[in-house]
């Protein structure tokens, strides 16, 4: 049995399963796994999750880059890129009211990051499925919860 505890090994399992753990720690994990069926079961689960990870569609990066370029071209359109129709509208607006210029400028999308109402978690998350509302718990309560899960409060150091 290695010196690494179950708590430490379980903290390292995601990195070990994906081959990202440093060699020294990986050796320690391998040694621990020889005698610990609980940690082996957790590693097996991590391997299953990794193996069933969704494959990223080919060409998605290209599609995203094109969308970003298109958006930036729209947002950054230089003044000489304004269409003749827009110029006519602008000229008409200036002729009608001094507020016209402000209206045209406000039509350009802003850069501010918008927090949408989608930020809130779904109402059926957690309670119906039996998960506790962890955000309402103190640090002490969270540590106690971790103890109940048999992983301790400082597991893995990540």
């Amino acid at each position: 049995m290695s010196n690494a505890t179950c708590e430490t090994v379980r903290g390292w399992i995601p990195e070990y399963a994906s081959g990202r753990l440093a060699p020294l720690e990986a050796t320690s994990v391998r040694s621990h796994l020889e005698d610990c069926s609980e940690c082996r079961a957790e590693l097996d689960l991590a391997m299953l999750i990794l193996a069933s990870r969704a494959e990223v569609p080919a060409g998605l990066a290209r599609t995203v880059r094109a969308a970003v370029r298109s958006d930036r071209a729209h947002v950054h359109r230089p003044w000489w890129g304004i269409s003749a129709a827009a110029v006519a509208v602008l000229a008409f607006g200036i002729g009608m009211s001094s507020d016209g210029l402000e209206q045209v400028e406000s039509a350009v999308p802003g850069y501010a990051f918008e927090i949408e109402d989608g930020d809130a978690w779904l109402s059926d998350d957690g309670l119906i499925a039996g998960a506790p509302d962890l955000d309402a718990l103190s640090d002490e309560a969270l540590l106690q919860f971790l103890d109940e899960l048999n992983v301790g409060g400082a597991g893995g150091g990540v």
Partner: protein
Amino acid sequence: MRGDERSDAILSDEELIERARAGDDAALSDLVERHHGAAYRVAFSMLQDDDAAQDVVQDTFIKAFRALGGFRGDSSFRTWVLTIAGNQARGALRKRGRRKETALEDAGPMRSEQKAPDEEAVDVQEAVRARKMLERLPEKQKLSVTLRIEEGLSFKEIGEVIGSSEGAARVNYFHGIRRLRELMQ
């Protein structure tokens, strides 16, 4: 080589962001290349719909780059992007009205790249079953497990993405793992 100032060295996200702010489109492309996969997996994990997840990834990067001038670097760019992706996916879920019940055969394609040591020994049927069970976890537990195992995020980073403390992210992860093991038995 793209651009006269670019070198062969791999640039950090921070360096790419600086260049992107200065108008370097190649830097934006590199950021997309580096992080679109994780954003897709987060979105797909929540939506279970390929088209919707791809839309979320597009919207995520458009929003991120529009707001790049205001990005202070309090969190990593990756964490920031994944947070936006999570928010976008939740917005899409709300618009959908209810969660789509996902049949086993509707699950996303199994990945084929980046095999870890001994992964060839993984039972494909068991992997599909594990994924199905994972989808049944409450949202924060599911995201904590996927972000930790699939993306290698720390609990602090997971907390930022799911809007919880580091401690809550840790509990969500271990609670999710325990429930998954129970479900798999």
